[in-house]
C-alpha cells in the first residue's frame, strides 16, 4: 500500500466518476435523440450545436426547481432513497477493467478476486433505493412501483447470476481482469475470432455462450428497469411509479441512478462477453501510452454501442404484462440459464482443455 498506489487510485476514481457522470448526462440526451429519430421526430436540437448542451440546461432546470416534500412522507427514508438508488450503480464500476494499462498503472480501480460477486452484491442494493422510495412516499402508486420493483429484481437476479456461470466455468477465475485476459487469448465469448479460432470445440462452446449472453442481457434489462420490463415505473399504469412523489434534484438522482445502472450494466456486459477493452490487432498499454488510451477508447465505444442497444430495444418493444414478466423470469430464463450451465460443463468435461 504505497503512496503511488493511493495517488493513482484516487486519480482513477475521480476521473472515472467524472466520466460516468458525463456519460449519464449524455446518455439522457442520446436517449431523447435516439427515441426521437426512431419515431421520425427531431428531438432536442436547440441548445448548442445539435442540442449538445441540452444536458447542462437540463441540469440547471432540475437544480432550480422547487424541491417539494409531500406532507405525509417518512422524511428520513424519503431523503435517503434517491441516494441509495445512485450509489450502487456508481460503486459497481470500480471492479470493471476499463482499459489495459496507462504508464504501467492498471486501468481498473479495484482488481478484486471476487469481481463478479462484488458486481452482483452491490448492484442488488439498487433495489433498496426504489423500494424505500416507494414506501417512504406514502402514496399508492409509488408503493405499487416499489413492490413491483422488488419482485422483479429478485426474479431476474437469479437468471442474471446463473447466466454468467458458464463464463466463469471457462475462465476459471472470478476476477474480471482475468476474464478480459482469457478473451484476449482465446477470442471474445460471443465471436471468438482471435486466438485459436480454428478449434471446432471453441465454436461449439460459442452456442451456449450466445444463449448465456441473451439471458444475461435480458436480465440486465430487467435489473435496470428498462423498457420491456419497466413495470416499476410504468407511466401509463402507475403515473411514474416509485418516483411519482419526487421532484427537483431528488427526482434527478433517481434518473441518474437509472442511467448509471444502465452504463454499469453495459460495462459488465462488454467485459464479460465482448472482450472488455480488447480489439483485435491493437496491443495493450505496455507497448506505449497511446495504445493504453486507445484501449480505454475501445472500451467506452463498446459501452456506447451496448447503450444504444438498450435504447433501441426500449423504443421498439412494448411493455410486458406483470404475469408474463414473472412467468418469463421464473419458468423460462431460469431454466434456460440452468440447462446452459450443464451444457457448458458437459462440453468442457469432454473436450481437450482449451
Amino acid at each position: 500500500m504505497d503512496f503511488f498506489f493511493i495517488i493513482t487510485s484516487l486519480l482513477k476514481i475521480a476521473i472515472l466518476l467524472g466520466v460516468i457522470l458525463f456519460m449519464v448526462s449524455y446518455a439522457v440526451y442520446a436517449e431523447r435523440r435516439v427515441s426521437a429519430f426512431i419515431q421520425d421526430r427531431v428531438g432536442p436540437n436547440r441548445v448548442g450545436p445539435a442540442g449538445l448542451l441540452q444536458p447542462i440546461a437540463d441540469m440547471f432546470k432540475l437544480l432550480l426547481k422547487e424541491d417539494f416534500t409531500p406532507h405525509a412522507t417518512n422524511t428520513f427514508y424519503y431523503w435517503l432513497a434517491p441516494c441509495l438508488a445512485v450509489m450502487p450503480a456508481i460503486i459497481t464500476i470500480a471492479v470493471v477493467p476499463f482499459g489495459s494499462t496507462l504508464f504501467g498503472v492498471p486501468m481498473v480501480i479495484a482488481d478484486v478476486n471476487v469481481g463478479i460477486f462484488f458486481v452482483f452484491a452491490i448492484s442488488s442494493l439498487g433495489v433498496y433505493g426504489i423500494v424505500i422510495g416507494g414506501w417512504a412516499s406514502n402514496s399508492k402508486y409509488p408503493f405499487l412501483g416499489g413492490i413491483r420493483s422488488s419482485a422483479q429484481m429478485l426474479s431476474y437476479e437469479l437468471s442474471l447470476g446463473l447466466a454468467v456461470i458458464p463464463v466463469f466455468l471457462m475462465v476459471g477465475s472470478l476476477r474480471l481482469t482475468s476474464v478480459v485476459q482469457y478473451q484476449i487469448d482465446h477470442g471474445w465469448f460471443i465471436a471468438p475470432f482471435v486466438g485459436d479460432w480454428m478449434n471446432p470445440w471453441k465454436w461449439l462452446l460459442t452456442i451456449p455462450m450466445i444463449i448465456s449472453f441473451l439471458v444475461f442481457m435480458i436480465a440486465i434489462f430487467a435489473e435496470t428497469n428498462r423498457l420491456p420490463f419497466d413495470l416499476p415505473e410504468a407511466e401509463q399504469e402507475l403515473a411514474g411509479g416509485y418516483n411519482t412523489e419526487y421532484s427537483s434534484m431528488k427526482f434527478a438522482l433517481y434518473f441518474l441512478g437509472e442511467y448509471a445502472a444502465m452504463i454499469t450494466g453495459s460495462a459488465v456486459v462488454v467485459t464479460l462477453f465482448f472482450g472488455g477493452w480488447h480489439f483485435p490487432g491493437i496491443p495493450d498499454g505496455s507497448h506505449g501510452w497511446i495504445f493504453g488510451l486507445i484501449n480505454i477508447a475501445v472500451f467506452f465505444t463498446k459501452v456506447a454501442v451496448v447503450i444504444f442497444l438498450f435504447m433501441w430495444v426500449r423504443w421498439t418493444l412494448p411493455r410486458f404484462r406483470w404475469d408474463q414478466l414473472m412467468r418469463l423470469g421464473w419458468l423460462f430464463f431460469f431454466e434456460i440459464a440452468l440447462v446452459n450451465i450443464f451444457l457448458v460443463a458437459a462440453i468442457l468435461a469432454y473436450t481437450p482443455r482449451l
Partner: protein
Amino acid sequence: MTITVPRPRLNWRERLYLPAIAAGLAITFKHFKNMLLGRTKVTMQYPEEKWDSHLPDHYRGAPALVRDTDGRVRCVACQLCEFICPPRAIKIIPGEIPPADRFAKVEKFPEEFDIDMIRCIYCGMCEEVCPEQAIYLRKDYAIAGFTRADMVHHKEKLLEIGGVMHGVVLKWNERK
C-alpha cells in the same frame, strides 16, 4: 351476440418471439437510419422555417386597418365592427374631420382604434361587416406580448400590419 375471437395456436417459431423482436428492431432501425441520414423530413423547424408560404388565401390571421392609395385611413369610424365583434375585442373612439380637410366629406375618423388581441377570436366578422373595406384579417398569426397591455393593438400597430390597400372602394374621391 357473442363474438368468438379466434386465438390461433402459435407455432414454436412464433412462440419464441425472437423473429418478431428482430423484425421490430429492423423497422425501428430503418426509421432511425433514415432520420439520421436526413431522408425523413417531417418536422418544420418553426422560428427559422415558417408556415407563411403554406397559408391558404382565405387564412384568417390578425385583423388590421388599411390605408387607401391617398394615404387616408379607410376607416370612417362607423363602429359596425365594434358592434358585431362577438368577444367585444374592438374599441373605437370616433373623431370629427375638420371642414378644411380634403376629406371633410367623410365627416368621421377613428381617433382611437384598439383591438384586444387576447379577446379576438379571429372570426373575421369585422372584415365581413365593414362597409368601407377598411379592416382586413391578415396572415399574421404569432401575436405575442409580455403584458396584457402589450396585447392590445392600437391604431398605429393596426395600420402597420395593414399597410396600403389598392383599388376597390374609391367613393370618397372628389372627382366622384
